[in-house]
C-alpha cells in the first residue's frame, strides 16, 4: 500500500467534517520557543479493564481477586515486568519496549470525575472535560486549542486539529476548526456487536437469531481456514477477525501519525477505538482483551514509526471512559467499573514509570466493594500534558478547558 493512498482527497475531508481547511495555513504551536509539539488523544470506547492490562502482581490480594485469570510474571504467557509491583499484559511488547526506554508511562487507578456506569455519559464526561454528562457540545481538546489561539500562541488561521474516523470525537469538536480523515476501509460490526445482537435476537426473534448465528459460524470457519482477506474492502465478507481489527487500528493510528508528522500538517489529533466492553470471555492472557491490547500495541508501533523524526516532540494519551469490575463476573468477563489505567507514550515523554497512588484490592479498599478505587484524577494527567507539552496556561485549564477543576492540580514532570 503506497503512501499516496493516505493523502486525503478534498471530498473525504469535506464529507467528514463539513469544514474547509488549507494545508498552507496549518499553524505551529509554540513556535516562538523553538518547539513544535504534537498531541494525539486516543479514546478506548467501552471501558478498559485496567487490571487486565496492567496487573498489580505485587499486591498480595491480586491472585485471590482474579484467580486463574490473574496475569502473573510466571503465567502462560508471562506478564511483562514494569517495576517491582506492576506487570504489563503480554500482548503489548511494543509498549513494554517504549516503557523500558523511558518513552512510555502508565497511570494506574485513575478515572474522570464520573462515578456512574453508563458508557455514553462516561464518554461525555471524559471528552467534554466537564464534571457532568451532557453539559456541552465541545471537547476539552478543542477548547484548549481555542485558548491557545486567543492567547496568541498559535496562528489563528486555518485548522489545526485532526479527527480520525467519520465521526469527529467529541473531545476535539468545538469552535476551533477540525479536519477529519475517514479511513478508506469500513470496519464492519465488531464481534462484540454481533454477540450482543445475537443475544438480543435470542430473547426476541429466534429466526433472526439463527440466521445471525449461522453467519457468525461461517465467518469463524472462514477465519480458521485463513482464507478471509483481513483488508478486504467488501463489508459483506466475514465479520472482522482480530486480523482485521489489527489492520484497522494500525492504519487509522498510522495515518493520524503521518498527518501529524507533516511540517504543515495538524498538531493535534483525536481518534476512538471501539470494542473494550468485555462483559464476557474477556481473556486477559488470550481472548478479547488480549487481542485488543495487541491491536493497540500495533497501533503504537505504527505511530512511532510514522512520526519519524518528530517522535521526540510527540505525546500520545490513551484514555477510556472508566474501568471494569475488579472481580471476574459469571461469564468470565468484567462489568462496568471505575478506576482504570491511562497509557502515555511518545518521544517527548518522561516515562519509564507507573504513576499510581495504589488503593489496594481488599474488599474494603475497592470502590463500592467492586471497582478499583480511583486515586488519581485523570484530569490532573491531561492538564499536566496540556500545560507542559502544549503550554496552555493553568488558569485557563482550570476555568475553560476543564471547568471547575481548580482543585485538580496539573500533574508535573510528565514531559521531558
Amino acid at each position, binding site marked *: 500500500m503506497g503512501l499516496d493512498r493516505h493523502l486525503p482527497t478534498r471530498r473525504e475531508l469535506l464529507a467528514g467534517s463539513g469544514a474547509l481547511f488549507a494545508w498552507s495555513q496549518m499553524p505551529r504551536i509554540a513556535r516562538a520557543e523553538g518547539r513544535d509539539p504534537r498531541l494525539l488523544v486516543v479514546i478506548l470506547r467501552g471501558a478498559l479493564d485496567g487490571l487486565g492490562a496492567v496487573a498489580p502482581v505485587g499486591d498480595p490480594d491480586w491472585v485471590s481477586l482474579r484467580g486463574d485469570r490473574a496475569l502473573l510474571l510466571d503465567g502462560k504467557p508471562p506478564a511483562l515486568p514494569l517495576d517491582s509491583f506492576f506487570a504489563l499484559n503480554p500482548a503489548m511488547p511494543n509498549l513494554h519496549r517504549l516503557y523500558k526506554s523511558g518513552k512510555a508511562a502508565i497511570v494506574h487507578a485513575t478515572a474522570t470525575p464520573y462515578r456512574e456506569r453508563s458508557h455514553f455519559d462516561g464518554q461525555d464526561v471524559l471528552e467534554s472535560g466537564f464534571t457532568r454528562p451532557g453539559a456541552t457540545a465541545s471537547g476539552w481538546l478543542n477548547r484548549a486549542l481555542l485558548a491557545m489561539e486567543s492567547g496568541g500562541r498559535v496562528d489563528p488561521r486555518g485548522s489545526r486539529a485532526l479527527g480520525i474516523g467519520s465521526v469527529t470525537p467529541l473531545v476535539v469538536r468545538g469552535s476551533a476548526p477540525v479536519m477529519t480523515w475517514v479511513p478508506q476501509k469500513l470496519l464492519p460490526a465488531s464481534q462484540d456487536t454481533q454477540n450482543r445482537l445475537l443475544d*438480543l435476537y435470542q430473547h426476541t426473534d429466534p429466526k433472526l437469531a439463527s440466521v445471525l448465528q449461522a453467519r457468525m459460524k461461517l465467518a469463524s470457519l472462514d477465519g480458521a481456514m485463513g482464507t478471509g482477506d483481513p483488508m478486504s474492502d467488501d463489508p459483506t465478507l466475514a465479520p472482522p477477525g482480530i486480523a482485521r481489527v489489527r489492520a484497522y487500528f494500525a492504519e487509522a493510528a498510522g495515518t493520524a501519525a503521518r498527518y501529524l508528522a507533516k511540517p504543515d500538517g495538524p498538531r493535534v489529533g483525536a481518534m476512538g477505538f471501539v470494542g473494550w466492553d468485555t462483559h464476557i470471555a474477556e481473556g486477559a492472557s488470550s481472548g478479547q482483551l488480549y487481542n485488543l491490547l495487541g491491536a493497540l500495541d500495533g497501533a503504537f508501533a505504527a505511530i512511532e514509526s510514522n512520526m519519524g523524526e518528530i517522535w521526540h516532540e510527540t505525546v500520545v494519551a490513551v484514555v477510556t471512559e472508566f474501568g471494569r469490575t475488579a472481580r471476574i463476573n459469571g461469564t468470565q468477563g468484567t462489568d462496568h467499573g471505575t478506576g482504570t489505567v491511562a497509557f502515555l507514550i511518545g518521544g517527548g515523554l518522561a516515562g519509564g514509570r507507573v504513576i499510581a497512588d495504589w488503593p489496594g484490592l481488599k474488599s474494603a479498599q475497592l470502590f463500592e466493594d467492586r471497582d478499583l478505587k480511583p486515586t488519581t484524577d485523570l484530569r490532573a494527567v491531561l492538564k499536566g500534558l496540556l500545560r507542559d507539552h502544549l503550554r496552555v496556561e493553568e488558569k485557563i485549564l482550570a476555568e475553560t478547558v476543564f471547568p471547575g477543576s481548580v482543585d485538580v492540580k496539573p500533574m508535573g514532570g510528565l514531559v521531558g
Partner: protein
Amino acid sequence: MSNSAKAEAVLALHRFGMGPRPGSIASVGSDPRGALIAELDRPLTLTAAAGLPTSAKAYRTVADANARRTARVKQAQQQAKKQQMAAAPAMSEDQAQGQGQGQTQDKDAAEMAAKQAAEAVPDPGRPMYLQEAKLRTEAALAAEIGFAERLVWFWSNHFCISANKIQSMSGAYEREAVRANALGRFVDLLLAVEGHPAMLFYLDNLESMGANSIAGINRSRGLNENIAREIMELHTLGVRTGYTQDDVISFANVMTGWTLVPPGADPQHGGEFTFNPRLHEPGGQTVLGRRYEQEDAEQGRAVLRDLAAHPATATHVATKLARHFVADEPPPALVEQMAKTFRDTEGDLKQVAIAMVSSDDAWRGPPSKLKRPGEWVVGMVRATGITTVDPVRFTGGQELLGEALWRPSAPKGYPDDEASWIDGVGRRLDIANNFAERITGMADPQIIIEDVFASEIAPEVKQAVGRAESRQQALALLFMSADFQRR
C-alpha cells in the same frame, strides 16, 4: 395518548408507512387508520421533479450521446489508421520483417484511441438514474406517514422494469406511469404502464411484429410473446389462472405495433409511445374466448381493459397487496374483502387501500413481515430525521442488500416473503453499523426510542441499547432490532 393508541400509531407507521420519524407519532395522533386514509387524499406529485426530463427526453439524450460516441470512435479509428499509413510510406526490408510486431502495436494504438474517444462521451443515463433515485428517496423521507409512497413502491415493483436495460428512463417511468396512477383505477395504471416506452422496451415489444404484418412479410423476424405472457401471468390474472398458450400468442399479436418513435428519426417525439401499423398483425384475435376485431392500438387497449376487469386480477392484486403490507400468509378474509372492493369499485386502488387499513384483520397479527431492504434503510434514515441523501451512497447500500433500485433480476420484481430476505440480515448489520458510525454525532438512540417509538419497543432492546459500549453500537443494535426490522 394511551399506550395502546401509541402502539397502534407505531404499528401504522411501520406496517403501512415508511417508518416513524421525529414527530410522526403526533401527526398520526390517536386515529392512525384515519391518518393513513387522509394521506391518500394528498396528491402524489413530486414538485422537485419539475426539472427532470421526461422518459422520452431522457431516451433521446442517451441516444444522442450514443450517436456522438460512435462517431467519435469511428473518427479516432480512421485517424489512427491514417497515422499508421503516414508512418510507413516506404518500408525497408528490415522494417518489413518486423511488420508483424508493428501491426500489433498499431492495432493497440487504434484501440486505445477508440477507447479514449468513447470515454470522452460519458453515458448520461447514470446521472439521470441517480437524480431520480435521490428524488424518490427524499419523497419517502419527507412523507408524513409514507403510506401513499409505499403504494407507489409497491406498484412500481409489481409493474417493474429494469434499469439494467433502460437506465435513463427508469425513474421517469415510475413518475409518469406508476406514480400518476397509483391511487387511481387499476385499468388506467395498467394502460399507462403497458403503453409506456420503458415497459415496451423492457419486455421486448419494440420490434415484435405479426407474421402477416407489412414488416413481418418482408423480414425474417417475427412475434415476441414476452409482454403478453408477463401481462397475464404477473401484471393481471396471475399465474395458472386459466389462460392458454394460444391466448398468449393471440395477445402477443394484439400487442404488435406497440412501440416507440425511434429517437434519431424525430427530435421532438423520439422515444415517445407510438403505434406502428407496419408491425401490427392484421385481423381479429381471440383472447380468453373473446374476439377483438379492432385494427389498431385500440385492440390492445380493449384486451387490457378486459384483463383489468377479470375477477382473477382482483384476487391476484388483493393477495399481493395484503402479502406486501400485512403478512406473508395474509388473512383470507382480508384478501377477500380487498378483492371484493376491487371488483365492486371497478379497480379503484384508493378504495382497495382504504379497505385494507379499515379491516381489523390488517392490524391484528404480530409484526411478522421482515421489511424489504429499501423500506428498512429509509426507515433508518427517517428515524434520525435526516431528509436528504447522497444518491450514490444510498443506491449503493440498497444494491449491497440485494434490492438495487429499479434493477430486479426478472419481470416478477423483488419478492415479498421473509425467506427471500432473511439471509441478508448479516449484510444489514454491516450497513447499520456503517450508518450508525456516520450519524453518531447527531442521533441519540435514547431519543429515537422515546420520540420516534414513543417507547413502544421491546424492553430487551431498550436494555441492549442502554448497555451498549458506544452510541454507534447502540444505534446499530436499535436499527437491527426486530422492532425495527419487522412490521
